[in-house]
């Protein structure tokens, strides 16, 4: 097991390096550059000023050399400084990453709380009204963008009923209930969006497992439905579901980008959007790197849970 984890971690290194390289190159290849934006804020900046800014930011060097310098810094734990604010990217991420991770975690949790029971119910009560309702819900959740429902939630309840979800950030220090309630609505919207695919996968896998011989045997032995569903069927149906959930971590982190702006959540997403528009190279590179590492690690963890769900799986 340990050997497997080490091997997976080593294999993750080229993946992360590739992400770093792709991000670094793409940022410099897309039209529009950082120096131009900085110059645009000053009505009398000259070409000499441009050269000086490029020199100061190290952008006058060939791109491969810039990447080598960047890589060296990252290996030493230095993600660089934002050319706009002068703040270190690491400290910006330190402030914001826990917010986004908590938000993403809550969204996935809410998604699972909705998707698993509904998926199971849908499979167990196949072709009943409950099944049709659950499947319609899943399609709706998959097809309506969460940012659209977020805007509906922001705009209409305040106009009709004088109510809106909390829009002012509440840290833990403001009280756990206020804090969790602040996250609840955006996490619900994102969670519902994620729930659709998990619910459908749960239903499909449960239907497959419920037709297996050992389940029929369990019924024949007179076991109670709850025991058959939860102890015998669900665990075996969960492996593909867990895979989907692992893949949704990336989706959830991506989803936070828009919802953070709508609900005023001070996470990585808002920071990331601003950094992209301002061509803040170190910040964009830092965010992508950290998110890539999170996604890679989560997927390793997901792979490890297979062994727990199905003891026949061996890591060799």
């Amino acid at each position, binding site marked *: 097991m340990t050997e497997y984890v080490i091997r997976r971690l080593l294999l993750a290194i080229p993946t992360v390096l590739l992400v770093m390289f792709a991000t670094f190159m793409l940022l410099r290849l*897309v*039209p*529009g*550059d*950082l*120096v*131009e*934006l*900085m*110059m*645009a*804020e*000053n*009505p*009398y*900046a*000259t070409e000499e*000023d441009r050269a*000086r*800014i490029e020199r100061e930011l190290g952008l006058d060097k060939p791109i491969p050399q810039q990447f080598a310098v960047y890589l060296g810094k990252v290996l030493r734990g230095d993600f660089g400084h934002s*050319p*706009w*604010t*002068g*703040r270190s990217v690491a400290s*910006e991420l330190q*402030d*914001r990453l826990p917010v986004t991770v908590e938000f993403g975690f809550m969204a996935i949790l809410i998604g699972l709380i909705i998707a698993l029971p509904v998926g199971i119910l849908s499979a167990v009560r196949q072709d009943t009204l409950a099944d049709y309702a659950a499947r319609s819900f899943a399609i709706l959740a998959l097809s309506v963008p969460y940012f659209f429902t977020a*805007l509906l939630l*922001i*705009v209409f309840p*305040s*106009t009709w009923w*004088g*109510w*809106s979800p909390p*829009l*002012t*950030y509440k840290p*833990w*220090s*403001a*009280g*756990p209930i*206020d804090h969790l309630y602040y996250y609840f609505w955006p996490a619900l919207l994102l969670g519902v969006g994620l729930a659709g695919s998990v619910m459908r996968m749960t239903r499909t896998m449960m239907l497959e497992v419920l037709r297996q011989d050992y389940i029929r045997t369990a019924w024949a032995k007179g076991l109670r439905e709850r025991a058959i569903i939860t102890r015998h069927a669900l665990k075996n149906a969960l492996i593909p579901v867990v895979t989907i959930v692992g893949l949704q971590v990336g989706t959830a982190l991506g989803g936070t980008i828009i919802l953070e*702006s*709508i*609900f*005023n959540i*001070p*996470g990585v997403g*808002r*920071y990331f959007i*601003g950094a992209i*528009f*301002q*061509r803040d190279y170190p910040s964009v590179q830092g965010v992508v790197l950290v998110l890539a590492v999170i996604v890679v690690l989560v997927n390793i963890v997901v792979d490890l849970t297979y062994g727990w769900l199905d003891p026949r799986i061996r890591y060799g």
Partner: protein
Amino acid sequence: MSNYWERYAVRRISRRRLLYGSGVAGAGLAGLALAGCGDDEEAPGGTQPPAGQTPGASPTAAPTEQPKRGGEVIFHLGGSPRSLDPHFDTFPYNTALTNNVYNGLYRFTPDLAEIVTDLATALPENPDQLTWVVKIHQGVKFHNVDPANGRELTAEDVKYSIERQSTNEPGKFQHAYFFLGKLDGIDTPDKYTVVFRTKRPYAPMMSYLASPWTLIINRETVEKYGDLTQHAVGTGPFIFKEWQKDVHMKAERNPDYWKQGLPYVDRVTWLFATDPDTAATMFIQKQVHAVIVSQPQLDRVRSARKDANYKAVPSQFWRQMRMPPTTKDQPYQPPFSDPRFRQAVVQAVNPEQVLDLVYAGDGVRAFGPILPIYEYWALPEELPEHKFDLANAKKLMQAAGVTSFRGPMIWATNPQADQIGEILKQQLAQIGVEVELQPMELAAYYNQTYSYKYTFSHHVPLNNPDPDENLSSYFGRNSTYYKHYNEEIFDLIDQQSQELDRERRRALVLEAQRKIVLDFPMKFMFTTNLHEFTDPAVKGWFYHTDLYDGRIETLWLDL
């Protein structure tokens, strides 16, 4: 914000002690309320009308009600500042805070009609055209916080601030151009006198001294922290308390403020919300006292908050449709080299129609490089040669011998700008000019537009209170935002920037604008309205015409 866990701990320690504490706090508040029945701000010294013909309401116009002391005012801001350093940032999110933590020497009245004193005791004396003598108030103290510790502000601080602001590092010191290359030196003959010596007569001097970016900072704070990116210690009405990135900024009343009785509110918070619908909801839900919304949110806010004070104000950001930039080495190419073709393009564009279709008519026309909100300097009406006239445009095309022309049009993409592109394409098609639409992401657009190599673009520039910046940075000899080569125009712009007599300067500014308009480099289109709302409890203050001016020292809450 008090910490929940601390409050929880306090409750667990002693409920009796807490009750005792509440009684003391209540008495303290009552005392403050009594103390708050104080003076109105009396702006000492004179006023100068730099940008308007008629003096408007002063920021401290005599209130009809007695101001009350206390409370917390909460503003919405569309984003977080990049830095708290007034010499670095260029966004109004910065000046919302810094204009209340620092003072300047002068400032514009909210309607931009006058320049009034702030730290200065009077308008400057000009013994000659190159010398500006400014006397500052005695006994002005920096905030009583580390590292300024309540030290008195002197002329040396003014000299230090202006010299730091003038640091020649574009990309960092973004407001250096106010004074860099223009000043010959700054002298401080005594503790309370500053003498600015300019290299040439410098007409924009007063506007830049009154700019919301020209603030007097504290040297010790810069020396302690390296810069003012995350720290702000000044002489202003509020003491900076907290800046939580992407969440809020907070400041508290300066109890030792040198303007007696001011400010009225105890605390001010700026909440950041980037999404316009979210901002509108925050105001509807009374989570903020003041908000600026755009046309798409207007009806919702107006119907939900009928009690609010409301004003529509033309934005300083406006719309131009440009033709190719020119320099001495890059003159107009045919057909643009024929002024009749350029005039045909200008007269084929109908800005009113664009404004109606895209913004439901919610804006005002621009007739030249200076917007009508700067009434004193702007062209009072559209020149006949510039007016929409399709028949004449067609005649001009015929006279120029151009039957058709095809060229790309670029702009920074967003839903409304994209609609504008579509409408301009249809309008120009009527004279045989076929436009290929090329919307671009903002950074890419900047790359293209500042290469000065394009055929058509529609662009959103910013207008400032001083006419010089609106002329010289677009049409001047060393312009960078746009380039239009015309020596006669260059000379007029240079002349106005050195003309200290206001009336004579105005004549030059108007003449320069007429020349620019009649050279047909672009169609001056329109600006859209910003919709400003304040809660009825907010008194003694409304939004400044210059969006960048965030001073709120006279604001009080009628709670």
